[in-house]
């Protein structure tokens, strides 16, 4: 019974971690950007979905949250990342660190703005489906099942996009050899816009689902970024499959710890795992480099 409970809860939370992390890793793989405003974008999506659910219902709120995630992704790209990448005043070898700092500060600005307008109290997005389903004797909120299904649907759609469409293949190519891609006549800027759009959808979906599953507060923004970052490092920077694997490793380790040891020690074993992996296999579980 407890085993099944851990299996179900761990699966849902891992799916959510995976969805949150693959956008982050994709963005790095394709455009070389480590977006430290990631948690802030998840936060805005969740808060918009929460705020609007009263006026337009749970589904309308979720759609608005998704759009807000996309809008924030584009804002991050157009207001923060691209100006730094294009600035002649910043030496090209320092651009990565400037993007890192820029997105970090942007994330803090988002976090403070959300705290200012909606307080630091956590907000929970209204569940898309209310009620509970009993799975093999384990009472599970139906929305938790829906969360896992939606996460895997989004992940599946991403897989189809990358492997089965021309635009997706261009993304893949950009992550392997951007120079070769430009020689073939592809415009890198358009590919960057595409990857930020995909990132926005993934982050928006993850934010809304996270808001409904566990709730978010402006104080979580940093933790969310750190959690995506550590999952991505564990899995191998830029590797989507690695991120999914790492998400499940972290999700289940946390769940097992919370149930069998203590909820307050939840994150400790997964952080230890991260230390071990970085020490023994610095490229991550499935990293290429």
């Amino acid at each position: 019974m407890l085993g099944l409970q851990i299996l179900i809860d761990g699966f849902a939370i891992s799916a959510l971690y995976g969805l949150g992390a693959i956008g982050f890793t994709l963005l790095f793989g394709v455009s070389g950007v480590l977006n430290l405003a990631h948690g802030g974008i998840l936060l805005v999506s969740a808060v918009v979905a929460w705020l609007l659910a009263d006026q337009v219902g749970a589904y309308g709120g979720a759609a608005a949250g998704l759009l807000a995630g996309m809008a924030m992704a584009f804002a991050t790209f157009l207001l923060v990342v691209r100006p730094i990448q294009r600035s002649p005043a910043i030496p090209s070898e320092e651009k990565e660190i400037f993007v890192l700092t820029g997105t970090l500060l942007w994330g803090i600005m988002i976090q403070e703005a959300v705290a200012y307008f909606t307080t630091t109290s956590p907000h929970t997005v209204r569940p898309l489906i209310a009620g509970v389903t009993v799975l093999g004797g384990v009472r599970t909120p139906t929305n938790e099942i829906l969360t896992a299904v939606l996460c895997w649907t989004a992940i599946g759609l991403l897989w189809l996009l990358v492997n089965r469409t021309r635009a997706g293949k261009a993304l893949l190519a950009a992550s392997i050899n951007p120079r070769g891609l430009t020689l073939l006549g592809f415009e890198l800027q358009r590919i960057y816009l595409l990857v930020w759009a995909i990132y926005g959808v993934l982050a928006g979906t993850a934010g809304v689902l996270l808001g409904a599953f566990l709730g978010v507060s402006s104080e979580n923004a940093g933790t969310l970024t750190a959690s995506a970052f550590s999952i991505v490092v564990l899995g191998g920077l830029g590797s989507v499959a690695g991120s999914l694997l790492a998400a499940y490793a972290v999700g289940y380790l946390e769940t097992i710890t919370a149930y069998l040891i203590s909820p307050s020690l939840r994150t400790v074993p997964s952080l230890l795992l991260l230390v071990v992996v970085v020490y023994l296999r610095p490229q991550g579980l499935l990293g290429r480099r």
Partner: protein
Amino acid sequence: MPMRRLLPALAFAFGLPSVASAADPIRIGVIAENSAISGIAIPNAAAVAAEEINAHGGVDGRMIEIVAYDDHNSAVDAVRAFQRAANQDKVHAVIATYTSEVALALEPWAGRLKIPTITPGAASDEIAKRIHGDYDHLKYFFHGYLPSAFLAQSVCDAAKDLLTDSKLKMKTAVIMSEDAAWTTPLDAGYMACLPKVGLQVLDHIRVAPDTTDFTPIYNGIEGKKPDVIVTGISHVGVQPTVQWANQQVPIPMFGISSQATSSTFWKDTNGATEGVVLQLVAVDTVASTPKTMPFAAAYIKKYGVTPAYSGYGAYDDVFLIADAVRRAGGTDPDKMVAALEATDYQGTVGRLQFFGKDAPFTHAIKYGTDYVSGLVVQWQDGKQVAVWPPAVATGTLRFPSFVKVAN
């Protein structure tokens, strides 16, 4: 024209304040966390009180001026704000924080800088115990809210009437409280008084304040099969409540849930707080004293939400300070402390008196039916319905269908 007569004329011409004009205002520093429900209620409520006092001519002709500081719930920021308030902004008194850790950090500073200070929302027993232990240095600090030991007693008193002696006939409880300074004495109080009212404590769980997933915690509690979960939560609130409802945990929640004291909690939890039972010191729908409802109405009119529990305290504290200044004949800190110690004032939460130097809870407000006794409400259909004590109850306990209780 002699210089003596020229100066006031010049001052008038340039709009400078004349030296002998109306008396200096009484400046009250308000230090709180502006981005939290229980924090923002403090400056908001203090502003309502100041407006009322000033509209009636102030204190002996002196207006009340509120100087507000955001401490971001950080002891360091709060101490810095306190120093600035005392040294630069020259406040005469301070009203500060709903967080015990912050209040304990400010306590010695009130003594060092000799600024009479009242906390309207922190609860740790330590606040008053430290004053008792080092009265000469710490006597400038007053605990304007019930210490945790009294809060626990209030919850147990209500539990006796509502849970064990009622038709619910409950016998067992699990305590679930957040890991913080204020809950250490609260839990000790619960452990002592719950068995006395007939609730055997099966387990005692302290929740890390950064917990986001409460599923394993509820799972563990359900395994113990208690009749009720007795809560002590303040900095966490939304997540345990929402997950309790979403996961349909079949055990009622009863106790202290500070965030749930404000009407914004309904929206914050999307109504998941339906059925949650909580202790508080005042609520907008119950006339605990003749002042409770008019204040709540003024607050709602100004801010659109009901005051969190700390708002009632902050509002009363401004009046306590004004009253002390009046009786002390000015703002001399030692005279104000003596005047505050002699406080006997009917506030929004009850009759306010502070324990004296020799009582174990020095400078804490007195608990009891003749003083501040608190009440218990239950969230029902978006409203906080008073269910205890019987004298003020407007409804009876009614739980959501997923909660299993004897009927």
